[in-house]
């Protein structure tokens, strides 16, 4: 029962942000369905969303192209947002994110290897392979940075490991045939373009299983936020829990990387925005809301990527890195050292 208390207390602070995020989601949904080439009438959009099927071009456009893309954006964003909260909690480090700790780089290297070397791997197995790559990348970083207590130290280790993995990736690119390589470039920038219901089907099982699992881990995140000593004192096996959190996080990210490529900085920003909006660090609240926040961020960024320079489309990963990276930079500079507290 004690679980309920903080939620009741902060109920009022919760309502407004969630409403705002829901409004953003609704707006991006409407814009995502309506705009593009061609711009579709509201009536047609409405009927196409409510009653999928039909033969007209507009119906097919909405229900077969725009809708799955939007749904993939939602799920990917939610997974990324949740993984960011988990990772920042697990490492007790507000600057941590999968793109900075080698997970994204490892996962995308594996997928790139599959693409370029034409390894006979079925699509269903690709998330698992990406997972293995992501885990390997993350493990290298965690092992290599063992002992360096500093926040920035670990991030720098992560960066250099990522740089190495990217170097290998360029080697692959140099070896590949130009056709594969062009596919690979688009993939590596992180894009939601050309996704269909097939991709949705591949993503849904992971989404349905992993997100609740992440929610279950919120309590451990809360304990870890108190610091290792306090958590140990409260009877938690810190090392094991941290490993569990990191593996879960790698799972969440690897799935998205396998489907959409490495989309940067969403998982870094979503928890920060959420904590700022909710004015709490209680992971039981932050985790679900940051999933919603990640979904809102990614779908907004994707709408931007699709419509900004229409008919030319810029992969969404470019935008998230451009905008998210700048915000992150500002944050680091304002926060000076970037210690775990505050």
């Amino acid at each position, binding site marked *: 029962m004690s679980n309920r208390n903080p939620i009741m207390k902060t109920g009022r602070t919760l309502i407004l942000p969630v409403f705002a995020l829901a409004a953003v989601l609704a707006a991006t949904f409407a814009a995502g369905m309506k705009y593009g080439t061609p711009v579709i009438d509201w009536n047609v959009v409405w009927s196409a969303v409510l009653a999928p099927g039909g033969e007209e071009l507009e119906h097919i456009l909405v229900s077969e192209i725009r809708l799955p893309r939007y749904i993939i954006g939602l799920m990917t964003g939610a997974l990324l947002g949740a993984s960011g909260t988990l990772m920042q909690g697990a490492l007790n480090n507000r600057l941590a994110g999968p793109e900075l700790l080698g997970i994204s780089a490892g996962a995308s290297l594996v997928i790139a290897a599959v693409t370029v070397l034409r390894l006979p791997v079925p699509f269903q197995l690709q998330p698992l392979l990406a997972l293995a790559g992501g885990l390997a990348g993350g493990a290298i970083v965690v092992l290599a940075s063992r002992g360096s207590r500093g926040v920035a130290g670990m991030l720098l280790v992560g960066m250099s490991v990522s740089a190495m993995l990217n170097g290998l990736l360029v080697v692959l690119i140099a070896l*590949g045939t130009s056709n594969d390589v062009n596919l690979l*470039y688009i993939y590596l920038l992180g894009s939601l373009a050309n996704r269909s219901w097939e991709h949705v089907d591949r993503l849904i099982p992971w989404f349905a299983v992993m997100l609740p699992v992440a929610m279950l881990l919120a309590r451990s995140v809360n304990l870890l936020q108190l610091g290792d000593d306090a958590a140990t004192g409260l009877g938690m096996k810190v090392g094991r829990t941290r490993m569990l959190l990191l593996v879960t996080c790698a799972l969440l990210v690897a799935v998205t990387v396998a489907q959409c490529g490495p989309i940067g900085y969403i998982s870094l920003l979503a928890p920060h925005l959420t904590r700022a909006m909710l004015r709490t660090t209680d992971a039981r609240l932050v985790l679900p809301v940051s999933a919603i926040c990640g979904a809102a961020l990614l779908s907004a960024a994707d709408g931007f990527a699709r419509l900004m320079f229409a008919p*030319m489309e810029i992969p969404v990963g470019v935008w998230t890195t451009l905008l998210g*990276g700048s915000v992150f930079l500002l944050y680091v500079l304002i926060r000076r050292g970037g210690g775990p507290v505050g």
Partner: protein
Amino acid sequence: MAKGMFGRERGSFRASYILVLAVLAALLAAMLVLHIAFGRTSFSIAEVAKALLGVSKDAGTRHIVWNLRLPRVLVAMAAGAMLGLAGAILQVVMRNPLVEPGLIGVSAGAVLSVVLAMQWWPGAAPTSGGLSWAALAGGMAAVVLIYLLNGRRGNSGARLALTGIVATSVIQSATSLLLLRNQEGLSSVLLWNFGSLNGRVWMHWSHIWPWGLALFGLAMLLARHASLLRLGDETAAGLGLAVNRMKLLLLLAAAALTAAAVSAVGAIGFIGLIGPHIARRLVGSQPLRLFPASALLSAVLLTAADWAGQSITLTFVLPGMQHHVSSLPVGAVTTLLGAPFFLYLLRRPGARR
């Protein structure tokens, strides 16, 4: 490491210093011959020597050596020397062993402005010198930005590198954005962001060497003052050095070196990190000695990396790719070598600050 810290033992050190320089120069010459001799068609050393001296009879050999391989290796040497020198200057000015032109956003800034210039400034065709100037502006803007953002609050080493790396990724994504918007073709994105020596000809060489020579001279003129900076800002100011002006001048020199190199070969990473470090092991950290040694060593390294990249792709062809053999971009080789080195520097005890 403390050897030659304050320029003591100058007399006894000079002989070994000259020896180091001579060995490096010999290595560089060896790399030159090796690089020219080895390729898809290999030549014997004698053939290379003949072609270089202009006494070769075979027109094909002459063409390959003079028009394809020699400019490439010369550009590699110049770019390597300039990046190494820039790295050494930056490490001295920021008093931070983790700094490198590629890591603090200078290369990325130069690349971004080159791409911008190619798009919106038609006068800046690769044949005119305009691109170098554009790169210069971008690199300087980046270095001044990073310095202003960090300089005031003390240069905690790791933090500077952290902001630099994030800034680099932001700038790189802006570059990708521009290239994609202009439908430049995706392959040029990575080519610029990683750097390559493929297809460099005499035009690139004639671009790069005046910058390199002039800026090397400037760096050597400033080196004596730069050595004072290592004592700390207060001490240097107390000894009568205009600290801020000197720092800015050195930073701009480093930015110009990087920018000129980048405008010819793209953002080749980590050379400016490894070169100065090894050079410091060899000749100590007195800038007057460090700068030339670091430039020479980095030239050797970049040429060797390019040679390794080429010979690897020529030797190990993966199954199914026999028809498509392009050589490895040199940026990939330097990153694969440099990133572990960076890791080692980070993990070394006492590297914290």
